């Protein structure tokens, strides 16, 4: 028998700190699989965020940098401008990208920086115990919206991908999810396309990934995946949003 699936070479063989059923580790693996497939392990530089994925550099066996909260696109911009031959990507959560880093991501996209952003959207601040994020769904209960998100008090879930797609600098934006094997494979294809977009010098690319957070949604991993299909992908429709 031949081995047909194993750990990608650029993903270190260490246990992750993520909770059981977390989507982050699936996306970590997909990023490594694509990097190995494209053969760019020596040329890639990742910028890790603040949030659950803060120690992603412990798991990725390629060059990584770290940035202050929300500022990964800025650090990635700097690295890319100094090393235009490298493949630079920023990995961010929804609290990082859509709250504290809103200005940074919008201006990075508007400048059309030739970097790639992987945006993990799970609708809560996972690292700090599940507070409401800008992407929390209407009516969703979190530790800072105990009766559910109320639009009169908290506003609407922010659709960052649609927002960024309005900017001419953004070239490729797609929203995917990791709730079932078919969608995981679509996510892998989107990650590959985004990195290729950068390697071809087209400009800013972003992949938004709807990811389960069973711990702070208060659901089992199975129900968390079902919630993405039933509720989250209704509020955040999947598909290519911009491909210029």
């Amino acid at each position, binding site marked *: *028998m*031949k*081995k*047909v*699936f*194993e*750990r990608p070479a650029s*993903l270190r063989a260490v*246990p*992750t700190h*993520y*909770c*059981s*059923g*977390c*989507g*982050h*580790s*699936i996306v970590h*693996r997909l990023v490594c699989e694509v990097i190995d497939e494209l053969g760019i392990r020596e040329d890639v530089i990742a910028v890790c965020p603040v949030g659950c994925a803060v120690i992603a550099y412990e798991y990725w066996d390629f060059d990584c940098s770290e940035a202050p909260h929300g500022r990964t696109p800025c650090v990635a911009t700097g690295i890319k401008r100094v090393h235009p031959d490298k493949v630079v990507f920023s990995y961010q959560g929804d609290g990082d990208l859509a709250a504290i880093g809103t200005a940074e991501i919008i201006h990075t996209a508007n400048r059309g920086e030739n970097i790639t952003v992987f945006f993990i959207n799970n609708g809560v601040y996972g690292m700090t115990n599940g507070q409401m994020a800008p992407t929390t769904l209407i009516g969703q209960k979190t530790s800072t919206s105990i009766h559910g998100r109320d639009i009169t008090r908290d506003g609407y879930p922010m659709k960052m991908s649609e927002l960024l797609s309005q900017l001419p600098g953004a070239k490729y934006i797609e929203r995917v999810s990791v709730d*079932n*094997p078919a969608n*995981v*494979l679509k996510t892998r294809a989107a990650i590959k396309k985004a990195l290729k977009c950068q390697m071809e010098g087209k400009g800013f690319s972003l992949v938004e990934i709807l990811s389960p957070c*069973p711990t702070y949604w208060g659901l*089992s*991993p*199975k129900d968390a*995946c079902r919630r993405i299909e039933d509720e989250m992908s209704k509020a955040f429709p999947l598909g290519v949003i911009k491909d210029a």
Partner: protein
Amino acid sequence: MGKITIDRNACKGCGLCAINCPEKLIIIDESMNVRGVHPAKFTETDPEKCKGCKMCAIMCPEVCIEVYK
């Protein structure tokens, strides 16, 4: 005909492999691993049903499944 191996002590017991196996060949073990969770376990009753489709490994967040075909 396929086969999978599960790294029992790396498993966090989320069960995403078990719910996505089309043949339902993965069960959650009754005994605990070193993490103190009930890990996934490949069936012992009819392993020949495994087609090596990789659905389990594609969903496994901890990359603790290897697939052979």
